């Protein structure tokens, strides 16, 4: 497969501050590629340079073979941009907005009409199409925002955090649309997010970006393999520092620590974190393993030997969140 996007050493300086420090990556035609990074990592700045919104300070990139410096005008016809912040005319109807964004790509007449109906169908807003955007809910506005980037049928779509501030239902809808556009229309997609769940769900490959640099780039499976083992949550009636140290010292175990809270629920779901009072139902010890299988056997053997009651056992696959933590020592989301 040919690369639809090749990026080489792309940099952006705002005055003295270098927001993007020489990123390089390539996206294959038909791929959903993730850009994962915390706030301020430089994701939007990178996308802005690739779409012609900002001029790069250094480096090069080619979109569909067109150089973004010399042949940006051609590159722009291939690109579709869904900006992170809503970029619509609130006093106009959804249809008027989409008509306009189609016209500036040269669409008109019957073609334009069909394309607009099509994208309205994709984001399920046909019924509300003739109402002003300002009367829409947040999730609906987001959907129009996405539709506006699709009217001209781009080959390469840049989705910059399309689910921020969206209710779970709209979010699922957005995921499905992205998957369908990719599968049924062969659209290549660059999906930016700081939610690792989204990236894990949608993307085949991911570049993890932090402080303007790509710190890892691979398939999700390979990235997770970077961690080596996995995480095991063990429920006990009680635990103290000495016990934790003994557990950490077991073969195949890297570390053991008490956790006060379960893992964060998926964003936006608003699920209440379950309370785990140490007195009533015991404590949970999180064990980071070099090798999950081996560690489970060793931990159970150890606990049996001491006659400590095991109240629960949960084996977690490591995720991108842990990968990011592993690579940077920071959490993806604060």
């Amino acid at each position: 497969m040919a690369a639809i996007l090749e990026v080489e050493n792309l940099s952006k300086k705002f005055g003295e501050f270098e927001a993007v420090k020489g990123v390089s990556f390539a996206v294959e035609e038909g791929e959903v590629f993730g850009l994962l990074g915390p706030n301020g990592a430089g994701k939007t700045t990178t996308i802005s340079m690739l779409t012609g919104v900002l001029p790069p300070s250094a480096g090069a990139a080619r979109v569909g073979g067109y150089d973004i410096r010399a042949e940006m005008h051609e590159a722009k016809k291939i690109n579709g941009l869904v900006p992170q912040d809503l970029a619509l005319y609130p006093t106009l109807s959804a249809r008027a907005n989409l008509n306009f964004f189609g016209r500036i790509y040269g669409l008109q007449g019957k073609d334009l009409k069909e394309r607009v109906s099509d994208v309205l169908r994709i984001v399920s807003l046909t019924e509300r199409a003739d109402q002003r955007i300002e009367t829409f809910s947040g999730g609906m506005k987001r959907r129009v925002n996405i539709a506006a980037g699709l009217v001209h049928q781009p080959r390469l779509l840049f989705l910059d955090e399309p689910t921020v501030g969206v209710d779970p239902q709209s979010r699922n809808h957005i995921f499905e649309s992205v998957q369908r556009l990719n599968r049924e229309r062969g659209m290549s997609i660059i999906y930016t997010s700081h939610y690792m769940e989204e990236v894990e769900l949608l993307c085949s490959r991911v570049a993890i970006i932090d402080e303007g640099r790509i710190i890892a780039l691979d398939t999700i499976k390979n990235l997770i393999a970077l961690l080596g083992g996995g995480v095991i949550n063990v429920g006990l009636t009680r635990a103290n520092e000495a016990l934790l140290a003994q557990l950490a010292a077991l073969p195949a175990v890297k570390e053991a620590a008490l956790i006060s809270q379960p893992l964060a629920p998926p964003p936006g779901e608003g699920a209440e974190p379950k309370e785990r009072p140490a007195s009533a139902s015991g404590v949970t010890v999180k064990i980071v393993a070099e090798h999950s299988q081996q560690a489970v056997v060793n931990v159970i053997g150890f606990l049996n030997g001491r006659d400590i009651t095991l109240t629960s056992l949960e084996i977690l696959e490591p995720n991108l969140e842990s990968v990011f933590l592993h690579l940077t020592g920071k959490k993806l989301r604060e």
Partner: protein
Amino acid sequence: MFKNTLAIAWKEIQLMLKDRGSLAILFLLPLLFGAVYGGMNLKFADTDDAGILVRVGVVNLDTGIFGEEITAALHTIDELQITDYETAAEAEAPVATGEAAAAIVIPAGFTEQVNAYTPTEIEVIVDPAQPESASIVTGIMNQVVDEATIWGEIQYGIRAVLEDSDAFTTASPEQQQAFAAQNLGVIMTQLNEMRRNPAIAVVSEDLEGATIEGGIEIFFALMFPGLTVMFVFFIVGVCAASLLNEREAGTLRRLLAAPLTPSAIIGGKTLAYMALACAQVVVLLGVAAIFFNMPLGASPLALLPLTVILAFVAAAMGMMIAALSKTPKQADTTGTVLGFVLAGIGGCIAMGPTPLTRTTGFIGILSKLTPHAHALEAYYSLMGENATFVQVLPEMGILLAMGLLFFTIAAWRFRFTD
């Protein structure tokens, strides 16, 4: 390329049509003023038979603006010889002795009552022995009081229109007050100027032998274009804000990511605001021609290129203000202030018998620096003096040059990134 420009222009027009507040300021406000000035001048032009001298005593117990206005207005009426008194009793005494024909008493709180739309009365005490003089005084009073109520309505109109505008409602109460007062101040001064030196002055000066009717209509060929040019330039702020709004609303990103040239973006906006300005001219001059018999001159077709060029200057000035401002709000304010200042300097407000450009000395030269003055000069020459297309070419040339300068500055200084 041109299709893109048109797409942007069409979108811009759709946005304008949704912005009722701005439309009210750009169309209804000048129509309201036009009707009031025009009507007032017609009225004064009609009542031009001096001769009788009536002695009248006036007492103004009101502390507000209308009492003052009415007193001042009475002083300007040639038929009346006015003496001011402090109290009603003092004013009535000469009436009782037959020395004066009438005493006029403006009650305390008159202004507040007019403003509050409460019925109020001005007392006219007449000498029954001089019935003719008495009826003249009452007649004059009715006319003057009519005017006072018009003031009240104008004030109400301004408020109503301003309250419809976004910029006004989002301002703090102090700003609102200041803004309303500023507008009112400018307009009141203008109206007062007009009333004190109404068309009669023009008429009696210029019209040896001609009819008064013809004179007032020639005057309208200056007055209505003045009003029109002034309000055409009020699109500057709106236009500038609309360009900066693209950045604020994030839509500039989409425009930049699309295969558009910067000139298509600026050009499309300019085109849309030119259309708006042309619509203003057509509506305002159309109303003037139909309802006030304003002449269109010997070469009415020449009005078309003149109007298009005027519209271009105003839109280009908007683009320039956008390029030089940081936020839409700042651009809007700059545009509005500039609109008032340039209208003043350019002679849209001062009401001499001819355009300000013809004044000798500093004022005349200063006025020539504004596009307003040149536009006004060209409209007046065409409509009031039957000039030909060729005769106004120099003015059109100057206007076009100004527009191109503004447009160039806009294209050069506008930051086409986020």
